[in-house]
């Protein structure tokens, strides 16, 4: 039984890899991202998911676009977040070909599904603000990772605060 199931799982993974290969190709073509942006497994090279897979999440992803932070169970932008987003928007104005994926993240508290929805809200709030500052919505995509990819792993507020973030990944310039 175990053997059969393993064979079946391997087949499943193969199929998944094949289908990922296809979608990555399509996606790359559609986005017109020259040469980069979309990694060989269909992941944005610098995405938090890809970094987690590589074991490099939380190390050196500081780029020109800065993260913003949220209160518990909130997707509201405070003054500090808006200030950072204004800087991010002005960088995007200066780099008019850059496309960006905005990731919404949550701390570990609460429910996996609710936090995935909350992360969507957080990424969406950041996107909306940057669009309101004149950046074309076509250049901005969003994705939620909920509480799945924390930067900090201790169970205290200092740590949680770092995890409730919207993170910007530059897909290509």
């Amino acid at each position: 039984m175990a053997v059969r199931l393993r064979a079946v799982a391997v087949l499943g993974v193969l199929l998944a890899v094949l289908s990922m290969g296809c979608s990555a190709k399509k996606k790359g073509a559609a986005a017109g991202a020259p040469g980069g942006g979309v990694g060989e497994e269909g992941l944005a090279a610098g995405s938090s998911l890809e970094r987690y897979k590589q074991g490099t999440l939380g190390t050196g992803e500081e780029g020109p676009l800065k993260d913003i932070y949220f209160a518990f169970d909130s997707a509201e932008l405070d003054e500090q977040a808006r200030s950072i987003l204004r800087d991010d928007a002005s960088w995007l104005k200066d780099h008019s070909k850059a496309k960006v994926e905005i990731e919404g993240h949550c701390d570990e508290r609460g429910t996996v599904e609710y936090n995935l929805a909350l992360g969507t809200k957080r990424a969406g709030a950041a996107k909306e603000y940057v669009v309101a500052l004149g950046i074309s919505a076509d250049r901005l995509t969003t994705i939620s990772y909920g509480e799945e990819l924390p930067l900090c792993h201790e169970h205290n507020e200092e740590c949680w605060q770092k995890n409730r973030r919207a993170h910007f990944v530059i897909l290509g310039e």
Partner: protein
Amino acid sequence: MRRMWWTLLVISLVMAGVRASDAQVRGTIFGPGARSYPVAVSPLRNLSAGGAAANFGTQFADIVSADLNLSGFFKLLDRAAYIEKPETSGYTADNINFDNWSVIGALALVKGAYSVSGDNVTAEVRLFDVYQRRQLAGVRYHGPLGELRRMANKFADEIMKQFTGERGPFDTRFAFVSTRGGKFKELYVMSPDGGDLQEVTRTQTINVSPSWSPDSHLLLYTSYKRRNPDLFVVDLASGRDVLVSSRPGLNLGGRFSPDGSKIALTIEDKGNADIAVVDRGGNLLRRVTDSWAIDVSPSWSPDGRRLAFTSNRSGAPQIYIVGVDGGETRRVTFSGTYNTSPAWSPKGDWIAYVSRADGGFNLFIVKVDGSDTRQLTQAAGNNEDPSWAPDGRYIVFSSSRTGRKKLFVTDLTGASQVQLTRGGGDDSSPAWSRWLE
């Protein structure tokens, strides 16, 4: 999986004229959590020539014991205290020395015998009332040796029926996600006794929210393996894995309707989570909610006409009920500022949910009309992800009370909370299947 080709035959109920209602002790005398009813589950006697499949009888007893321990009704007597040797003693009412069992405090006794022929086994298992010195139930199983676990789980269900009037919830499976195999949450399934663990996915990406089809053959789950959180369905027997919904953004928390014809899930619209119902191919049938607020985690009523879900439309997450085909939306929870993860009980009477209370996250149940709120866990880490047993008497959930997240089973009073999984990694998002046949 072999389950599909199961040829196990429950050949006969060796009833000896005893009906469930004749059992000496019923649910009114003791409840789960009381652990008041001492039972001895003796290894089955091996009648095979040459001692083939020598471990079968002990494994059978181990599985039945694990199931009964989960129920909270029984106190399992230590095998070291047994006077009789299972390999030589009698196993029918007229040749068991009941004094050997009453003297060690047993009120109920499980005994039996098995013989192996090729890859098949025939097992005859009986439940006795030690005090009245008579048989309460007897079942003869015949099937492949590999069906050991199902035979034992079925007999545990039968024991529960004899003592409580209702079949037990053990001839079932749990699905859950775990990081035991690496850094990512992958899907696993497991028998309620903790055995027969199988890895369903090895995707090396985020997988969340497994849930069963009503026939217990399929698992819905959300995976990032195509980069976006898409909804997939995997057939456990064939391993066939099919993309169901890949709308941009969330395709989250899919749940089959009770008749299996539809799937409720959370989708994303204009950057916000809403509840929708799709057909089995992922085609939109109905938008159930369309609000500016987060609407997430749908759970079907047993009649398939309503959905419980989480919404923060009041400013913080609370549990609501809405008609699948429209109609008014009604709020169910009013105490607490963070209530999520509704799970509608299979009998239709309760909704289990998670509330931020007492400095952590705890399990509650509330009547569907919003009355009679009961807290099942407290002061024991975070307790989340409730999923109902098919008999409506138990809930499996995840708890961090021992450090990492592990699976536990509770009764509806919280008095009996039994740990199911151990070891490394986090186990979470358990889903309890229906009965397997």
